[in-house]
Structure formats: C-alpha cells, structure tokens
C-alpha cells in the first residue's frame, strides 16, 4: 500500500518538473517556450514583418523617382549612385544612433534607416532594369504612338521587372536580417528577443528568434519569386 502511494508520488512531480526553458535546463530547442510565450513571439514577429515591409516599400517609393531622375539627367546619375553607396557604407549600428536626434527612439528611426539601405539596392536595380530594355523595343513603341508616360508604364517597366525583382529580393532579405539591429532602439522585432536572450542567457528564446528570422527571410523571398512569376508570365519557358 505504502509502496503504491510512493510510486504515485514519484510519478506525480513530473507535472511540475522544470520546463525545458528554465534556468536549470536551458535547452536550445524547446516546445514549451513556443506555447508559453506565444503572444510575445507573435508580437515580435508581427513587428519584424511590419518594419521590414514598410521599410522596403518606402525605399521603393523613394528609389523610383530617383532612378527616373538619374536616367533623365545623366549628370545626376553618378551623384545619386555615389550618395546612396555612401549611405550603404555606414554600418547600421552607427546609422540608427545618427537618426535618433531627428526621430527619437521610435520605430520610425529603424524604418528610415532600413529604407535608406534598401534604397541603394533598389535605385541600382531600377536603373539596370530600365537600361536592359532593348532600344529597338523602345523605338517600336514610340513608332506605335506611345508617349513618354505610356512607354515607361506599359513597355519599359514590365520589361525591366525581372532585374528590378532581383534587386527587390536582395533588398527584402537584407532588410529582414538588418531589422534585428533595430533592437538598439528597442524596435527590432525578433531582434529584441535575440538581445534579451543574450542578456539573460536564455537559449530557447535566442535560438527560436534566430530561426524565425531566417524563416521569415526565406518566406518573403519565396513570395517575391511567386509574385514575379505571376507578374511576368512571358518569361516562363523562355528563360533568359
């Protein structure tokens, strides 16, 4: 009888055994962490996606007129390229503090910084893409009566799309990775979890956030590839 009770007691404590993310165990991979801290992880991921998407879209919105301007005025082109490359040389950990006096410790700081980096890649790929349109095509379009705007929107941009999308993919994947550095101003998405994981030696948090970062980059990249396939049906089969 007593033996049975003892056996039952021996089995019971397993319910409040230290979970795999407690200080004693500190596993790298831990399912309990995922379930227990779900809302925290989801919040960080949503913030990460939000910052990345806004930054890339902002970068694209600025890059587009800049590229058109650079194309129209060749003298400005080297200046625009030099300035954007200069920005790219500035390390992100240095760029964010430089922006803080203007934008404060907000998500705006991170978004602007990342948009500046994305801008560099996007301006270049837009210019390369537009340059890749054959002159004959442009001439035929003009012959068919296309004006400047129509030529750009309906002929040049669609043909430039493959190169532009390649640039967009590079910019997006880089931005996902760079967003983590935003944890310096407390808006780093999954970077916040990574930073916390280092400071508190919390392996499950650190590992989960790192893996999610890479996953996010891969998923966004795949989505862009998919978008490109949908947007440029004519390139399928005739791979150039």
């Amino acid at each position, binding site marked *: 009888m007593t033996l049975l009770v003892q056996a039952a007691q021996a089995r019971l404590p397993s319910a409040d055994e230290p979970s795999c993310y407690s200080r004693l165990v500190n596993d790298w991979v831990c399912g309990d962490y995922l379930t227990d801290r779900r809302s925290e992880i989801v919040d960080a991921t949503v913030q990460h996606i939000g910052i990345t998407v806004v930054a890339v879209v902002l970068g694209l919105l600025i890059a587009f007129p800049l590229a058109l301007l650079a194309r129209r005025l060749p003298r400005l*082109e*080297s200046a625009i*390229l*030099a300035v954007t*490359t*200069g920005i*790219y*040389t*500035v*390390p*992100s*950990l*240095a*760029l964010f*503090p*430089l922006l*803080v*006096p203007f934008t404060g410790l907000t998500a705006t700081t991170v978004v602007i910084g990342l948009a500046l*980096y994305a801008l*560099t*890649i996007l301006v*270049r*790929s837009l210019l*390369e893409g537009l340059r890749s349109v054959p002159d004959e095509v442009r001439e035929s379009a003009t012959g068919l009566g296309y004006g400047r705007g129509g030529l750009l929107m309906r002929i040049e941009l669609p043909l430039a799309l493959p*190169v532009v999308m*390649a*640039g967009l993919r*590079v910019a997006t*994947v*880089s*931005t*996902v*990775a*760079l*967003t*983590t*550095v935003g*944890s*310096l*101003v407390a808006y780093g998405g999954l*970077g916040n979890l*990574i*930073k916390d*994981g*280092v400071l508190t*030696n919390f*392996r499950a948090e*650190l*590992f989960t*956030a*790192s893996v999610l*970062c*890479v996953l996010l*980059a*891969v998923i966004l*990249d795949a989505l862009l590839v998919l978008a490109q396939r949908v947007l440029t049906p004519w390139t399928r089969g005739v791979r150039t």
Partner: protein
Amino acid sequence: MTVFSDMWAYLSDPANWSGSDGIAALLGQQLLLTFTALLMAMALGLPLALWLGHLGRGGFAAINISNIGRAVPTFALLALLVVAPWPGTDSFGPYGRAGLATLIALTLFALPPIITNAYVAMREVAPDVREAARGMGMTGRQQFWQVELPLGLPLVVSGLRLALVQVWATATIAALVAGPGLGQIITDGFFRSNYGKGIAGAVVVAAVALVLELLAAMAQRAVDPTRRTGATATPGGGHDDALSVTGATVESSAEPVG
C-alpha cells in the same frame, strides 16, 4: 540640437581618445579584428573559389552560399556564438569570449562576397581570350596565373572590398553582445542615455568605414589591367562595381552592411 554639441564635446576631449577603453584603443581593436577576419576568410575562400572558377565547376554552390549568408542576421549568429558552450575558451587573446565569437562570425560573413566574386571573376574572362591562351600552348596553370587571374583581379578585389567594409560594419555589432570594438562607445552611450557619446561613436565608425571604402576602391583601380593600358574606362558602373545588381552578379553581390 544639444546632442551634436555633446558629440563634439566628446570627440574633442583628448581624454576620451586615450586609455584602455578610449576611442583609439577600441579603433585599434576593431581594425585588428576586421583585418584578421578578412585574412582568415581570404585564406579559406580565395583558393577554393579561384580553383573552382578556373575549372568552371561548383557555380551553383558558390552563388547559393551568398544567398544563404544574406538571410542569416549577423546579430543572430553573433548572439548564438556568444551564448553557445562551444567554441570552448572563455578567453581568446585580449578580447575574451565575445572576441572569439566575433572573429568567427566576421570570418563567416566575409566568405560569401569573397567566394562569389572570385568565382564570377574567373568565369567572366572572355572565352576567346581563354581559347587564344590555349592556342598559344599555355598549360592550365599558366592560363590561370598569366591570363585569368590578371584579368579577373579587379572583380576579385571588388569582393575583398565589399567584404572589408562589411566586416568592419559587422564588427560594430559585436558590442551588442559585449564584444570588442567601437560599437562599445555607441551602445554604452545609448544605454546610459548619453546620446552625444553614442553619436560620437557612430560618427567615428562611419568615417572609418568611408575611409576603408575609399582605400579599397583605390586598390581596386590600381589592379585593373584594362585601366593601366587605358583601353576602357567605365566610370561609375560596369561589372566591377560591387553593389550593382546585374546579369551574372544578380544573385552574387550586394550584401547588407552589418
């Protein structure tokens, strides 16, 4: 903007430059780390990439290495290396645990641009040039040393240039995991709400990054064989530009800086 006057005050005070955690010492640390990592990456990556490029094999792997490298956040890799129980030592030279983690992370991050550019450089040597070399009776070794390497050198150096600036930038991030280097000034200033100091650190890092970039660009121009003979000059463009996203290099270059 009082932060900027704070920044100037910090930068112009000689006391902040000297000492074991002064700007000069940290700058030295970061330069040492940067160049050690770059040399290690060169020793590891260059021979392999050049050889594969010479043979014309393994291109798929070379290109994909850089794509994977881009998706892994530097910060995450550094953090994992610092917290992980391996690589063993708690002290490595003067920098401690975070120093070794930084060195490993920096070396890994220098590899993709070096490997892809070296590979592409070998592949982009014009086929007729290669054929002419073979027609002159050159052996594979002679072809490599006398034709392919000199012609491909600007692109190889462009990869080194990209890696150098990138490693310098990444070395700053080491401070987020209590590593060595100038990033310490930035994070220290930040976490103690001494923004002037943080921005001072950022200015020094950015200035050195630009200097390194300019020096590397000069080195790149110096090794360009087509420039020496004055045959072609491609201002502000062409395939030798490390950041351009075009044809063969669409997937290969343009790594995030830190």
